[in-house]
C-alpha cells in the first residue's frame, strides 16, 4: 500500500463509502470501475509522501489522531507498524550509524575489511564451484545423455573404465528401444597434421561417429552436421584450428594430411570451439576409418567412449538394468571366447564385470576413472571442501562482526539508555542496530567486489581456469548476492541488536553497567571457534608442505639431473638411431638412450602377468619396459646384482632385468640370477622363457602417489624418446645444435624436448597447487582471526582501564599487567588447539592416504601450530595490552 500511514484510514474510508453508495445507485460493475478510477486519483505525491516529523508539536494531523485514538482505543485499526517504519526515524538511524562508524574508525575498518575479505573469498569460491558444477551443461540435452562405462573387478582391484568395445554403441541402439541415439568416440593420441608447409602436433584429436552431433550440442559454423562425418577420411575442425591452418580462408573441402603416412583427411565442417566446461575437448574430430568395424566386441579393443541419449523424463536406472542385461550377454559371450570361462566361472574367483550409466553432468565431478578420462576430472571432494572453506570464512567474518559490535556495545550503552528513556521501544533499537550492520555489510560487499576484481587473475592462475566476473552480471546472481549480504548483515547484527536493546536503562544511566563475565563466555566461544579454524588450517598447511618437500627430496632411484628428453623421435623413423649416434659423438653428451618409457609423468602402461618357471600358476602383475643397453646407465639406475644388457651377449634378446619388488613378488630373494620366467604365452599355449641377468634397485617410475610395482625390463627396440645425459652448462647452444641436427632429417614433427627434473616437478603440480591454496586460505583466516582478536583486545583493555589503574597504584608492574591481559586469550587459544588437533589430524590423514609414500604427522606439528597461533595472538593482543599497561593510572582514575 502506497498511501502514507497518516492518511490511510481516512482515504480507505472515503473510497469504501462512495463505493457503497454507487453500488446502490449505479450497480456493482460501474461502482467497481469508478472505485479503481478514484483509487488512481490518489496516486499523487501528497498521499504517498510520508508525514514529516511525527513528533513535532505543531503536527495537527498526529495530534488530532492521538486524541481520536484515545477515544477509540478499544478498536485499534491504525497499523502498529506505522510506529516503526517511519522514514524519518530511519534517516535518524542512518545519521547516528554514520556518526558512530566515523567515530570508531578502527573497529569500523576491522569490521568492513574482515567482512569484505570473507565475502570476496565466498564470491571467488562461488565462481569456482559454479564453474565446476556447470560442466557439460552447455549440451541442450545434458540431462538425457549418459555414458556407458564398465565396472570390472580383477584380483581384488577395480579396473573398470569409461570405455567399451567398438560394437557396444551399435548394439545398444539396435537392442534397447529406450536408447534414442548412441554415439561413440575414441582418443587418438597425438598426431602430426600438416597442410602445405605448416605442420602441428594435434594432441586433442578425437575420432567419432557421425551421430556425435545428434547427441552433443556443438554448433556448426560451416558444413552440414548431418553429413559431416558420414564418410571415412573426413574431419571436422574447430574454429580455432581452422584459423591456425588457414587463417581467414574457407577450410571446407581442403585436405589435411595425418601422421607419418600422410593420410589425407577432407575437412567437411567447422564447429565453434568446444566449451572449456566440457569433459572432452577436441581440436579435430575425424570420422572412423572404413576398417574400424572389423574389431567387433564390447571388451575387445576397449577404446570407445560410448554415450546414449534417452527419452525425456525417463528413469535411467531402468534403462541401466536393461543395458546391464544386454552387456551380461555380450561381455559374457566374449569372456567365453577369449578366456574360455563362463561368467559364473569368472565370478567364482571373486572377479566381476558389468556396466554402469554415468549421467553426463556428473562425469566431471563424480567419475572415478582418473587417467582413463579424456581430460582430468574435478573432484566433488574439492567442491565440498572449498564450499566449506567459503562458509567458514564467512562465518568467521560474521563472528568478528558480532564480537566487535557486542564489544563496542557498552560504549553505546548510554545512547541506548537515553533513547529508552525518551521512549524508544526495543523494536526500534533493534531496528537501529540492524540498520547499522546492514550498512556495514553493504559497504563490505562493495569492497569485497573490488577485491574479487583485483584477485581474479591470480585466482585464475591458481586454479588454471578462465573465470570471469560475467557471472556476476546475471540478475539472479546479483539478487542472490544482495540477498546474501543483507542476510549476513542481519545475522551479524542480530546478536548485538538483541543484546543492546535489552539493556536496562536505569542501570545503564547510573553508570553501573559493565559487560559482566557472563557475556565474556559467548565472546570467548567465538574466539575459540576462530582459532580452532585457524589452527586447523596451519596444521594442514604445514603437513601439505612437508609432504611436498618429502616427495621432491625423496630419492627416486635414478638420476634426474642433466637429463634431456627429446620427444617424438619416432617421427624420424629409421633415422632415430642415426640421430642418436650423431648425438653421442658430441663431447657434451655422456650417454644417450632411445626409449618409449620415461620414468616420470603418466606413461600409461598396461600391467601384464608374468609367472616364474617353477610356479606357473602364480602370476605377478608387472610393468614391462623395453629398453636398450644404454637405458640404465643414462638414468644412472643402480644395479644390485648381475649385469646390464650388453651388445656383446647375443642371447640378451631373451634376457630380462627385474627390479627388487619383482624379485620379492616372485619369491626369488635368494640368488635370482639365472632363473627363468614366463613372459609371454601365445594363442597356441607356447610359452616364451626369459632368463634373469640382473636386478636393479627399486626406482619410482611414476609419482610417489603410486607404490613401486614389479618391473620387468626387456631388451628391445622401443622408440619414442631419446634420453640424453649431458655434461654441459651451455644448454642453449647445445639445444640449438640438436635442433639443427634434428631438422637435417626433415621430419614431420617439430623439435621438442624437456628436462627430466622439470617433468618431475610437473608431476607434483597439483600438490603444489593444493599447497598454494592452503597457504592462501590459512593466511586469510589468520588475518581475519587476528582482526577479530585485535578488536576484542582493544575492548578488553578499555573495559579494564580502571582495574589496571588501581592495580598500578597498588604496585603492579607493567609486565604483570600485560600478562594479566594476555592470560585470557592464551587460555582460549589453548582450548582451540586441543579441539583442532584431532580434527586436523584426521583430515590430513585422509589426504595423505592418497600417497603411497608419505610423511607421518608428528606431534611437533601441533606444537608448532599452537605456538604460531599463540605468537600471532600475542603480537595482536600485546599492542593493546602494553598500551593499556603503560598508561598513567592518574588519568584513568581521576575521572571517577
Amino acid at each position: 500500500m502506497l498511501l502514507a500511514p497518516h492518511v490511510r484510514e481516512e482515504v480507505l474510508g472515503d473510497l469504501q463509502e462512495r463505493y457503497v453508495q454507487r453500488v446502490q445507485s449505479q450497480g456493482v460493475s460501474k461502482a467497481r470501475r469508478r472505485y479503481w478510477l478514484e483509487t488512481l486519483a490518489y496516486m499523487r505525491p501528497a498521499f504517498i509522501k510520508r508525514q514529516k516529523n511525527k513528533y513535532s508539536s505543531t503536527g495537527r494531523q498526529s495530534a488530532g489522531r492521538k486524541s481520536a485514538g484515545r477515544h477509540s482505543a478499544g478498536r485499534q485499526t491504525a497499523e502498529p507498524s506505522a510506529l516503526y517504519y517511519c522514514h524519518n526515524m530511519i534517516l535518524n538511524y542512518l545519521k547516528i550509524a554514520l556518526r558512530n562508524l566515523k567515530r570508531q574508525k578502527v573497529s569500523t575498518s576491522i569490521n568492513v575489511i574482515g567482512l569484505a575479505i570473507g565475502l570476496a573469498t565466498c564470491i571467488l569460491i562461488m565462481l569456482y564451484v559454479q564453474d565446476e558444477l556447470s560442466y557439460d551443461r552447455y549440451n541442450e540435452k545434458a540431462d538425457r545423455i549418459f555414458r556407458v562405462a564398465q565396472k570390472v573387478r580383477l584380483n581384488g582391484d577395480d579396473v573398470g573404465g569409461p570405455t567399451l568395445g567398438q560394437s557396444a554403441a551399435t548394439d545398444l541402439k539396435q537392442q534397447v528401444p529406450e536408447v534414442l541415439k548412441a554415439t561413440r568416440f575414441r582418443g587418438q593420441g597425438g598426431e602430426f597434421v600438416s597442410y602445405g608447409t605448416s605442420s602441428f602436433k594435434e594432441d586433442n584429436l578425437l575420432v567419432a561417429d557421425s551421430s556425435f552431433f545428434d547427441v552433443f550440442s556443438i554448433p556448426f559454423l560451416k558444413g552440414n552436421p548431418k553429413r559431416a562425418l558420414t564418410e571415412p577420411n573426413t574431419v571436422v575442425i574447430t574454429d580455432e584450428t581452422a584459423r591456425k591452418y588457414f587463417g581467414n580462408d574457407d577450410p571446407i573441402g581442403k585436405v589435411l594430411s595425418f601422421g607419418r603416412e600422410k593420410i589425407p583427411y577432407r575437412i567437411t565442417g567447422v564447429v565453434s570451439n568446444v566449451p572449456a566446461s566440457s569433459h572432452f575437448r577436441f581440436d579435430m574430430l575425424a570420422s572412423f576409418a572404413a576398417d574400424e568395424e572389423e574389431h567387433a566386441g564390447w571388451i575387445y579393443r576397449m577404446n570407445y567412449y560410448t554415450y546414449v541419449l534417452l527419452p525425456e523424463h525417463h528413469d535411467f536406472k531402468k534403462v541401466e538394468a536393461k543395458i546391464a542385461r544386454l552387456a551380461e550377454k555380450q561381455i559374457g559371450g566374449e569372456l567365453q571366447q577369449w578366456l574360455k570361462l563362463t561368467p559364473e566361472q569368472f565370478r567364482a574367483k571373486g572377479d566381476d564385470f558389468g556396466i554402469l550409466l554415468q549421467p553426463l553432468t556428473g562425469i566431471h565431478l563424480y567419475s572415478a576413472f582418473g587417467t582413463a578420462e579424456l581430460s582430468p576430472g574435478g573432484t566433488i571432494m574439492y567442491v565440498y571442501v572449498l564450499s566449506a572453506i567459503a562458509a567458514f570464512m564467512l562465518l568467521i567474518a560474521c563472528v568478528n562482526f558480532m564480537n566487535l559490535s557486542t564489544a563496542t556495545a557498552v560504549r553505546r550503552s548510554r545512547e541506548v539508555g537515553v533513547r529508552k528513556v525518551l521512549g524508544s521501544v526495543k523494536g526500534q533499537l533493534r531496528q537501529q542496530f540492524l540498520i547499522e550492520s546492514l550498512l556495514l555489510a553493504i559497504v563490505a560487499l562493495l569492497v569485497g567486489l573490488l577485491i574479487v576484481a583485483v584477485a581474479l587473475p591470480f585466482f585464475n592462475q591458481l586454479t588454471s581456469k578462465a573465470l570471469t566476473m560475467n557471472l556476476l552480471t546475471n540478475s539472479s546472481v546479483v539478487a542472490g548476492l544482495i540477498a546474501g549480504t543483507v542476510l549476513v548483515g542481519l545475522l551479524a547484527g542480530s546478536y548485538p541488536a538483541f543484546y543492546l536493546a535489552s539493556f536496562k536503562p536505569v542501570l545503564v544511566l547510573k553508570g553501573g553497567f559493565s559487560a559482566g563475565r557472563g557475556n565474556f563466555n559467548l565472546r570467548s566461544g567465538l574466539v575459540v571457534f576462530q582459532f580452532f579454524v585457524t589452527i586447523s588450517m596451519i596444521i594442514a598447511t604445514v603437513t601439505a608442505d612437508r609432504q611436498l618437500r618429502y616427495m621432491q627430496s625423496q630419492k627416486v632411484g635414478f638420476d634426474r639431473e642433466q637429463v634431456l628428453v627429446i620427444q617424438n623421435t619416432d617421427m624420424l623413423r629409421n633415422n632415430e638411431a642415426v640421430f642418436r649416434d650423431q648425438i653421442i659423438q658430441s663431447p657434451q653428451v655422456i650417454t644417450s638412450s632411445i626409449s618409449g618409457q620415461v620414468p616420470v609423468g603418466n606413461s600409461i602402461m598396461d600391467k601384464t602377468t608374468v609367472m616364474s618357471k617353477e610356479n606357473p600358476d602364480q602370476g605377478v602383475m608387472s610393468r614391462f619396459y623395453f629398453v636398450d643397453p644404454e637405458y640404465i646407465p643414462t638414468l644412472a639406475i643402480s644395479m644390485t646384482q648381475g649385469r646390464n644388457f650388453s651388445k656383446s651377449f647375443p642371447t640378451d634378446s631373451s634376457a630380462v632385468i627385474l627390479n627388487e619388488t619383482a624379485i620379492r613378488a616372485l619369491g626369488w630373494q635368494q640368488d635370482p640370477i639365472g632363473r627363468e620366467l614366463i613372459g609371454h604365452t601365445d594363442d597356441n599355449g607356447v610359452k616364451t622363457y626369459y632368463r634373469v641377468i640382473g636386478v636393479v634397485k627399486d626406482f619410482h617410475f611414476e609419482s610417489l602417489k603410486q607404490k613401486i610395482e614389479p618391473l620387468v625390463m626387456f631388451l628391445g627396440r622401443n622408440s619414442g624418446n631419446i634420453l640424453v645425459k649431458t655434461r654441459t652448462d651451455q644448454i642453449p647452444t647445445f639445444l640449438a645444435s640438436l635442433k639443427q641436427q634434428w631438422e637435417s632429417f626433415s621430419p614431420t614433427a617439430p623439435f621438442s624436448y624437456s628436462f627430466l627434473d622439470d617433468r618431475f616437478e610437473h608431476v607434483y603440480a597439483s600438490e603444489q597447487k593444493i599447497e598454494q591454496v592452503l597457504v592462501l586460505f590459512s593466511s586469510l583466516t589468520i588475518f581475519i582471526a587476528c582482526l577479530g582478536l585485535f578488536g576484542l583486545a582493544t575492548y578488553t583493555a578499555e573495559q579494564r582501564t580502571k582495574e589496571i589503574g588501581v592495580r598500578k597504584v597498588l604496585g603492579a608492574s607493567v609486565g604483570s599487567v600485560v600478562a594479566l591481559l594476555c592470560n585470557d586469550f592464551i587460555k582460549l587459544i589453548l582450548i582451540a588447539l586441543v579441539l583442532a588437533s584431532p580434527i586436523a589430524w584426521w583430515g590430513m590423514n585422509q589426504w595423505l592416504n592418497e600417497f603411497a609414500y608419505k610423511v607421518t604427522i608428528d606431534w611437533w606439528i601441533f606444537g608448532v601450530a599452537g605456538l604460531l597461533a599463540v605468537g600471532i595472538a600475542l603480537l595482536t593482543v600485546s599492542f593493546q595490552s602494553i598500551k593499556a599497561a603503560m598508561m598513567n593510572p592518574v588519568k584513568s582514575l581521576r575521572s571517577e
Partner: protein
Amino acid sequence: MRRSDLGEFEEVVLLAVAALSPNAYTVAIAEELERETGNIVTSGAVHAAMQRLEQKHYLKSVWGEATAERGGRRKRLYAVTGLGGRVLEESRAVRNRLWDRILPAIRLEWN
C-alpha cells in the same frame, strides 16, 4: 496583507466545506460538487485540495465517528478557519467589485 493564494478548485472546495459544515468530509463534498457542477469529481482530488487548504491554515479538521458504510473507518470532518473565512470573504469582495464594474450593455451581449 497576505497574498491570497487560493486556486479555483480550492476555492470551490473551501466554499463547499463552509456550506456543508458541520458535516463536511471528503465524500460529502465530492458528491456535492458532482451534483452542482455535473462533472465527475473524485474524492482523491477533493482530498488533495483539502490537504493543501489545511496546510495553508484555511481549513481545520477533527476525526469524526466511524460508520458502517465506511467499513468501520472514521471520517475526518473539516471546518473553515477564521483565516479561511476571511480569505473567502475577500475573494468574494474582489469578484463582487469586478462584477459591479461590468457595463450592463456588455452583459447583454453575452446573452
